[in-house]
């Protein structure tokens, strides 16, 4: 691997290109100059003096022995001779002829046909992009020569090292495969730490299992590099699928993309099973025909079209039938809450509705004089349903019959969902205050002035209340109502903060960032950028955060590394908070659809279309999902994961 070694260690002090011009080797080859100095040995251009009249040029590869031990050298030379003999018998227009080999001055030399041209690596360095048609043609020719090698009798020849620098384009524009693996026998093992991997080799090759299917992988890797111009030696190994071809080469035909993706399959059995098969697929691309690459398209993560074509068949949209629907008189913006056998939801029709969980039958309604945007919350110990209304009032009603228990008036509309904790209820109001009341009787405890409307839901930990405001201020308040810390973002905060078991607080900003703070002091640990305001709150499951953004994407991000694991593209803003249940994450989009997505892969499992945007979190239980929609309806869907 000397080609990719940037820091070779101490033994890299060999004098490369040690032969001077006009040196004559074995009384026959006159050195003209150095063609290249790859790693352990140089390649010279030489003239064959056996043909004094014709100016016959040859390439001579010089190889250094890995060791000075005479026995080891003899073994190396024997291997070299054996392989050179095999290569000398090959006859294919894309394989340079081997004329001679010999051993002189403690070095081995291989005499080959001189090819006037440029290797693909050099060609890439000289160009910004190469025509796709040309690349396709070369790829077909490479399949052809590799097919020839793989079908060599009695033993198949595996090239093992397909990469741009080993592929020459000659003066006729034809592909020639150079640098057969024999040279590798002369490279000594490197002991010191170094940087740079082969980049083009198949995973199984590192176990020593090189097969014809490994050459297929390397050809895929080479084509990927040529098209995307992303050098795999500079990337983590085996990560081609993290650099989608169309992101860098929008002109590449889908068929070509599919062929390369299939060639790059991690498991050999998922690749083309022969060079002939790959060549056939490439020929179809050349003809402009549809690819037969099969399900490779399903790998385009997060593309709903692709996933529904291949993965979604088991649960097509029609397969999900609501158990029941409950229609209110206006949009339902807030999410449902449940207690025992009852479900509660507020509607913009000014009522909070209570329905029976199992049947969706109407139980009671509680009228207010303003729209209800927030979600009701439950105070278990007092059996109360708590919610604010745009009529400025906060209400506590009995869960069974909807009778009023207590009310509290603020000076602004209430759009913040409340939080019940430590026997108190906390909520914000458009009057700019956060309120703390005794949950059982509504007795006033304190209020905190945020100076701007508070529409987020306070999060309460053992010792802090964390809440954000339209001013872009997020505060950590002591339970007694005094401020412990403040964190400011440049735009408003509509996404309710969430604190995990590590004490890390997550919230989204209108500036498009998801923030992670230390809830103890408000220090900003990291932020994750999306391309639109974040209104939804995050849900954390295990080490991952799940949340949507108004950029139309639903994200899965590692909470420790702030790195995206997968994304699911909805296309329309996602403002609803998600919920996680048994390996799936559930959320609604403003496109009106309710999605069930695999937690691990980010692939859609099923979706259910409602007649209006979904702006709030669903309620999940073992057997039912409740979803509010702006089509005025509360849906009860069967729990399917």
């Amino acid at each position, binding site marked *: 691997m000397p080609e990719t070694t940037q820091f*070779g260690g101490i033994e890299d002090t060999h004098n490369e290109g040690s032969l001077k011009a006009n040196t004559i080797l074995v009384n026959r080859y006159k050195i003209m100059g150095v063609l290249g100095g790859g790693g352990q040995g140089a390649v010279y251009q030489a003239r064959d003096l056996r043909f004094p009249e014709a100016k016959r040029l040859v390439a001579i590869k010089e190889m250094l022995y890995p060791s000075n031990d005479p026995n080891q050298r003899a073994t190396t030379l024997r291997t070299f001779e054996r392989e050179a003999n095999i290569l000398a018998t090959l006859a294919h227009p894309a394989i340079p002829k081997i004329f001679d080999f010999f051993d002189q001055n403690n070095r081995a030399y291989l005499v080959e046909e001189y090819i006037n041209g440029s290797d693909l690596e050099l060609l890439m360095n000289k160009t910004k992009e190469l025509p796709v048609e040309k690349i396709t043609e070369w790829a077909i020719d490479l399949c052809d020569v590799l097919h020839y090698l793989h079908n060599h009798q009695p033993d198949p020849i595996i090239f093992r090292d397909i990469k741009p620098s080993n592929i020459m384009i000659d003066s006729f524009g034809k592909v020639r495969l150079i640098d057969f693996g024999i040279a590798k026998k002369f490279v000594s093992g490197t002991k010191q730490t170094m940087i*740079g991997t082969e980049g083009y080799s198949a995973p199984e090759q*590192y176990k020593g299992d090189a097969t014809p299917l490994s050459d297929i992988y390397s050809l895929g890797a080479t084509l990927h590099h040529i098209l995307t111009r992303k050098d795999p030696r500079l990337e983590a*190994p085996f990560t081609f699928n993290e650099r989608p071809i169309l992101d860098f080469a929008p002109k590449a035909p889908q068929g070509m993309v599919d062929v390369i993706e299939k060639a790059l399959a991690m498991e050999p059995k998922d690749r083309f099973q022969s060079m002939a098969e790959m060549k056939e697929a490439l020929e179809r691309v050349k003809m402009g025909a549809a690819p037969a690459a099969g399900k490779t398209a399903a790998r385009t993560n997060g593309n709903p079209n692709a996933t529904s074509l291949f993965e979604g068949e088991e649960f097509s949209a029609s397969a999900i039938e609501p158990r029941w629907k409950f229609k209110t008189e206006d949009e339902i913006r807030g999410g449902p809450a449940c207690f025992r056998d009852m479900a509660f939801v507020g509607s913009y029709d000014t009522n909070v509705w209570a329905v029976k969980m199992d049947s969706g039958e109407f139980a009671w309604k509680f009228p207010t004089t303003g729209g209800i945007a927030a979600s009701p919350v439950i105070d278990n110990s007092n059996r109360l349903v708590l919610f604010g209304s745009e009529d400025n009032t906060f209400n506590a009603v009995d869960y069974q019959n909807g009778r009023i228990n207590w009310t509290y008036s603020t000076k602004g509309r209430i759009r913040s969902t409340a939080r019940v904790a430590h026997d108190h209820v906390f909520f914000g109001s458009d009057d700019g205050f956060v309120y703390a009341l005794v949950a059982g009787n509504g007795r006033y405890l304190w209020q905190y002035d945020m100076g701007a409307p508070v529409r987020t839901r306070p999060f309460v930990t053992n010792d802090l209340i964390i809440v954000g405001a339209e001013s872009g201020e997020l505060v950590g308040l002591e339970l007694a109502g005094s401020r412990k810390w403040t964190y400011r973002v440049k735009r408003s905060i509509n996404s309710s903060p969430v604190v995990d078991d590590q004490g890390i607080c997550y919230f989204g900003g209108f500036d498009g960032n998801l923030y992670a703070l230390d809830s*103890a002091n408000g220090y*900003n640990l990291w932020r994750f950028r999306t391309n639109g305001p974040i209104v939804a709150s995050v849900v954390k499951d295990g080490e991952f955060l799940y949340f949507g953004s108004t950029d139309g994407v639903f994200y899965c991000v590692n909470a420790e590394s702030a790195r995206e694991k997968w994304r699911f593209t909805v296309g329309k803003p996602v403002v609803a908070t998600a919920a996680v249940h048994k390996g799936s994450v559930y959320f609604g989009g403003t496109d009106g659809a309710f999605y069930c997505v695999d937690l691990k892969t980010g692939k859609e499992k099923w979706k259910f279309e409602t007649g209006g945007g979904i702006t709030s979190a669903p309620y999940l239980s073992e057997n039912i999902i409740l979803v509010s929609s702006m089509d005025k309806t509360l849906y009860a869907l069967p729990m399917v994961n």
Partner: protein
Amino acid sequence: MNGWIRRVFGKTDEQASVGMQQTEKSVMTNNSGDPENEAATETADLKPVTNAATAPLPQRNIAEGVTRELPPEVMYSGMGEHFSFGQCTNVGKVRPNNQDAALSFFASSRSVDDRPDFGLFIVADGMGGHHHGEKASAITTRVMNSVITTNIYLPLMLGNQDAPPIAEALINAVQKANLEVIRTVPEGGTTVTAVAVIGDLAHIVHVGDSRAYLVSKEGLEQVTRDHSLVQRLIELDQLTPDEAAVHPQKNVLYRALGQNEIVEVDTITRRIPADARLLLCSDGLWAYVDERDIFEIAINNPDPQMACEKLVSLANARGGLDNITVILLKFASS
């Protein structure tokens, strides 16, 4: 550089203007092959120091072998609510020079402000012949320390609201170090694993195959992920860890500083449980000492400096085939 040198860069006892008693200690330990700082070390060690916590180490004879015996840890013992640390780097028994670099920077204050302890700890394993490796790792620790002091530590002290998120400041520090390595030692490269500790939150940045381990009663957890070819192969179920340990390309990294102008940096934020340890080390430790031994020594030694010394001795006992660097942070009991 052989052995380790502890440096005392400064010590301040301040009276806060409001009249509250406030003491701040700032200790900086830097083990690196940076020859420019050699002279500074000599003089710093000669300065009279009154604070026991930052006093210079007593002179001891250097025993035959590769590690020096260390005096018992004197720092912060008995100050249960703060953490303590140890640091040791050693050339090993085979290599002609130590290409590793280590840096510890620690500040602890007691005042009405109730500021959390701050610590920055860096391990860098340089690579490249002709002293390029040791220069690359030295530059990396130096540049990172300066960037992090400016962008994290000072804003914390000043209560600066506009400071960048900690992870971003750390990534920025690695990227600055990377550019500096490319500029000044184009032939060299280095790994870097660093942690900025603020209170009980550890912010780790990582490139390459040095490692951070979390050591708690539950065991040893490797927090960082090696950017090595064999690690990728393990993740893809193509190799077992045992096969990787003897793989001919086990030293091949796909990510390091000094390689490319753009370097991708891993960050990890972790709250460290009470009584746990965080261990940073170069592959000179983890490649030769069993994780079980690392765990036993890290968890059973009340004195982190002693634990570092023992770990280095053990790596040398196993052959000392590579440079060995260990930093161990011991977090306070709850």
